[in-house]
Each structure stands twice: as structure tokens, then as C-alpha cells.
């Protein structure tokens, strides 16, 4: 585990049952390097995920560390702060964002009311995803977002846990602060899941810069429209688009001359085109740039970058083989988010 991400890691551990947190914390720092997820399953061994690799947590005697019922109850209380009602909407959606921006996925039994899921009970599994704030990792990618000095609408896409939100957070900070010799701009972040800024109690856990307004918990469509109406941003940032109503919000933003920096789930351009709303947005030429990340060999690996060519309604995306200082694409390799952060010489705070 990186030393300068110690506080983030302590935050993360505070939501695990005490016994499990101690077992994880007692592991060798090198062994924990690259930890992305901790998965708790009632009565089963605790899993630690490192990108695509899964390891099982062992106890002091070398046996598998199983999760007891009491530990699951404790974990649930820690996540919900013994106030389940306060997280009803999130639990209904299958996840909870805890302090520090870490997201916990939930699997249990649905409680139905009038045919729709009201909440979950009898929790069986919890998937803790470790959220990192890596400063400077987007610096090399900044030139890629501009064409003739003009910021392009950009979509970052990848399979889950490949570093989309981490990169999005850093690019937001860099763009708002006018990094790379650009002008400062006003940015509005529509943080539906509370992962980008991790706002809690009126404060943002992650520093996104001085020029950023954060709308937390708003559905993307409503948040984006509200931002356009009242916050007049130059750039709108949001995570994981793909719902039908997102298209309308994107269209409104484009009409208003606002630039977009968004993310979506997909592991290839073909998969991206397979999602109806995204296919329409791509076909309309909404995005000037596409950036594909991969979790392998490590989260944050830039697998491919594309730029739009052609006119609206007949847009094609062609791979780019230039633009990054490290130039990983030309070598056919990848850029690693953590290595980029180290190279930038900035701590993760």
C-alpha cells in the first residue's frame, strides 16, 4: 500500500468489521499494493481483489479467514451508521457510498413494496471498493482532451474497477485549475453516487480545486439540468452515463455550449456501441474524444484512445497513437495510474 494513501486506507478499513480490518492491516504493505476491493460473504472466506487477481484472506494460523454472522452485522452497522433509513435510496440501488468515497455493493434479499424494491434485508455479501485520490495522474492525458486549443467532449470508458472515477477526478481538478497552460474554468460535477468528490456533511473529501461546484446525490439528468440552469459551468462532469434520460441532459448541455467529461461502463468500442443510448451519442458525434481504460495489468491502464472524425450523424472514431508524454500507445503498452501519480511527484493526500 502506498504510504501517502495511508489516511484513505485507514478510512476504508474503518468500515470493515474490526477483526477483518485488523487482519487486512496486519498484512505486508507490499502484499496490499494495488488492492482494489474487499469482498465479504457471510460464512465464506474474505476475498481481496487486486485488479483481476483474487486472493483469500488467511488467519494467523494460515487457515482461511471466514466471515461470521456477527461480523456481517457489524459491517452492516458500520456502513449504515446504524441508520438504515438514511441510506434507503442507495440500498435500493444496490450500493452505499461511505465516507471517503468508497463504494460498498450490497447483495441480500429484496424487500418489495407495491411491486418495487423498497430496501434489502438479510445481507449476504458486501463488496467494498477502495477509492483512491491519485493526484496528477491525468496530467499526461490533458493534451489529448484538446484539439486546436479547444476542450473536446470526452468519454472515459472501461470495465468496472479500472480507474475511471480516479482519472475523472484528477482530470476535473486539472481542468478547473487550468493545468497545462490553459485558462481556469468553472466546472460542475454531478456526483450521483457521491464517489467523485465524496461530499459528506457539507465538505468534499476529495479536493477538486477552487473552480468546482459539486451536486451530490442528484440523478444525473436532474443534476445536469439544474447545473445548466443555475451554475453556468464551462464543463459538466459526471460518472457512469447510459440511461435513457442521460441523452436528453447531454443534448441540453451541448445546446448550451457546455463541454462534457463523462464515464461509462464498456470494455471495448464495440461494447460501447452495443449500448443503445451511447450508440446514439456516438453516432451523433457528441464526443470528440474517447478513452478506454483497462484493469489489467493494473487499474488505470490506458488501453486505447480515439478521436472523432466525420460529421454529425456520420461520425467515426479512429484510434490515436500520439498525444501522451509517456506515449504508451505507440509501444502497445499501458500507462499505470499509480506510476503516473508517482512520476507527477504529487501525494495522494
Amino acid at each position, binding site marked *: 500500500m502506498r504510504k501517502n494513501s495511508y489516511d484513505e486506507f485507514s478510512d476504508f478499513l474503518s468500515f470493515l468489521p474490526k477483526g477483518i480490518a485488523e487482519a487486512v492491516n496486519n498484512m505486508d504493505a507490499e502484499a496490499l499494493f494495488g488492492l482494489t476491493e474487499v469482498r465479504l460473504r457471510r460464512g465464506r472466506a474474505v476475498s481481496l481483489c487486486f485488479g483481476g487477481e483474487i486472493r483469500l484472506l488467511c488467519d494467523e494460523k494460515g487457515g482461511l479467514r471466514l466471515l461470521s454472522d456477527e461480523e456481517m*452485522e*457489524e459491517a452492516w*452497522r*458500520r456502513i*449504515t*451508521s*446504524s*441508520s*438504515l*433509513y*438514511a441510506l*434507503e435510496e442507495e440500498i435500493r440501488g444496490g450500493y452505499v457510498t461511505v465516507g471517503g468515497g468508497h463504494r460498498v455493493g450490497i447483495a441480500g434479499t429484496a*424487500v418489495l413494496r407495491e411491486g418495487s424494491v*423498497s*430496501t434489502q434485508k438479510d445481507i449476504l455479501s458486501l463488496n467494498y471498493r477502495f477509492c483512491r485520490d491519485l493526484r496528477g495522474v491525468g496530467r499526461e492525458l490533458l493534451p489529448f482532451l484538446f484539439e486546436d486549443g479547444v476542450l473536446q467532449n470526452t468519454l472515459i470508458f472501461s470495465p468496472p474497477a479500472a480507474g475511471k472515477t480516479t482519472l475523472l477526478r484528477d482530470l476535473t481538478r486539472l481542468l478547473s485549475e487550468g493545468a497545462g497552460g490553459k485558462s481556469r474554468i468553472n466546472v460542475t460535477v454531478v456526483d450521483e453516487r457521491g464517489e467523485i468528490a465524496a461530499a459528506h456533511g457539507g465538505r468534499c473529501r476529495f479536493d477538486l480545486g477552487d473552480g468546482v461546484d459539486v451536486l451530490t446525490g442528484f440523478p444525473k439528468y436532474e443534476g445536469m439540468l439544474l447545473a445548466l440552469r443555475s451554475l453556468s459551468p464551462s464543463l459538466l462532469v459526471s460518472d457512469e452515463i447510459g440511461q435513457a434520460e442521460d441523452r436528453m441532459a447531454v443534448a441540453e448541455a451541448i445546446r448550451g455550449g457546455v463541454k462534457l467529461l463523462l464515464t461509462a461502463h464498456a470494455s471495448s468500442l464495440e461494447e460501447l456501441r452495443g449500448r443503445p443510448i451511447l450508440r446514439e451519442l456516438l453516432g451523433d458525434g457528441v464526443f470528440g474524444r474517447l478513452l478506454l481504460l483497462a484493469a489489467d495489468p493494473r487499474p488505470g491502464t490506458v488501453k486505447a484512445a480515439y478521436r472523432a472524425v466525420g460529421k454529425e450523424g456520420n461520425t467515426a472514431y479512429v484510434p490515436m497513437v500520439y498525444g501522451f508524454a509517456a506515449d504508451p500507445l505507440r509501444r502497445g503498452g499501458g500507462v499505470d495510474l499509480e506510476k503516473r501519480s508517482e512520476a507527477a511527484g504529487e501525494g495522494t493526500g
Partner: protein
Amino acid sequence: MRNGLKRRERELADFLNGLKIVASEISCRNTPLADCFERAARTMTTAIKDVFLLTAAALKENKSGDEAVGGAVAAQRERLSLTDADLEVCAALGLRLGENDREHTLKHLDYMEASAEKCLGEAYENSAKWDRVFLGGGWLGGIALALFFL
């Protein structure tokens, strides 16, 4: 004894008021339980305040609602002027508190308010009864004293 009765009244009134604040924090602001109890405690003047503060502290230590409220009531039991029945009502507040959705949490608080109101009503009645006894005793004493001097 009369002071004890008045203290019971004030403590139950504080408890009832606290329940109302907790319920309004939950229904209007979705405030987490620990903060609800802390905010309610700020408005209190009797030993119930410490029950709410201890509950808030225990909730912050990730104890369940039952453990938190039960523990706080047990810890303050000696300092309170409440009857055993009142204390049972106070401790029942913690039962599965925070483990349900908002609708059921508010229903539970409504039920607790009704129980606390009943206790408070009984406390007022008791207090009024003893007031009458003291008043009657006072009159009788006064008459006896007057007769003595005559």
C-alpha cells in the same frame, strides 16, 4: 417526594420532546441516528440529556440501537426520577432502532411518543393527586393551628 414527582414530569417531558426532535430530523433531513440524538440532547435540561448523549456516543461506536439506548438508560438509571415502567418505555426506544426503513422507523417513534405521552399523563395525574394531598394537608394544618391559638 413532591420534588421527585415534578422531576419525573420534567424528565418525561424532555424524553417526549427528544423523540419529536429525532422524528423530525429523520423525516425532514434524513439525519443519521447519532446526530439526531445529539441534536435532541441540546434542547434538554434534565438527566434525560445524558441518556441521549450516551446513546449518540454508543451509536458512533457502531453499537446497535438496542445496545446504545439500553446501555444509556441503564447507566443513568440511578440519576433519573423515572419509574420502572417509564424506564422500560425509554429502553424500548432502542428496539431495532435504525435497522428499518424510514417509514417503519417513524412508525416506531410514533408508538414511542404515544407510550411516553401515556407515562407523562400518568405522571401529571400522580403529581396532581399529591398536590391535592399537600394542599389538603396544608389547609388541615392551618385550621388545626388556628384552633390551637383560639
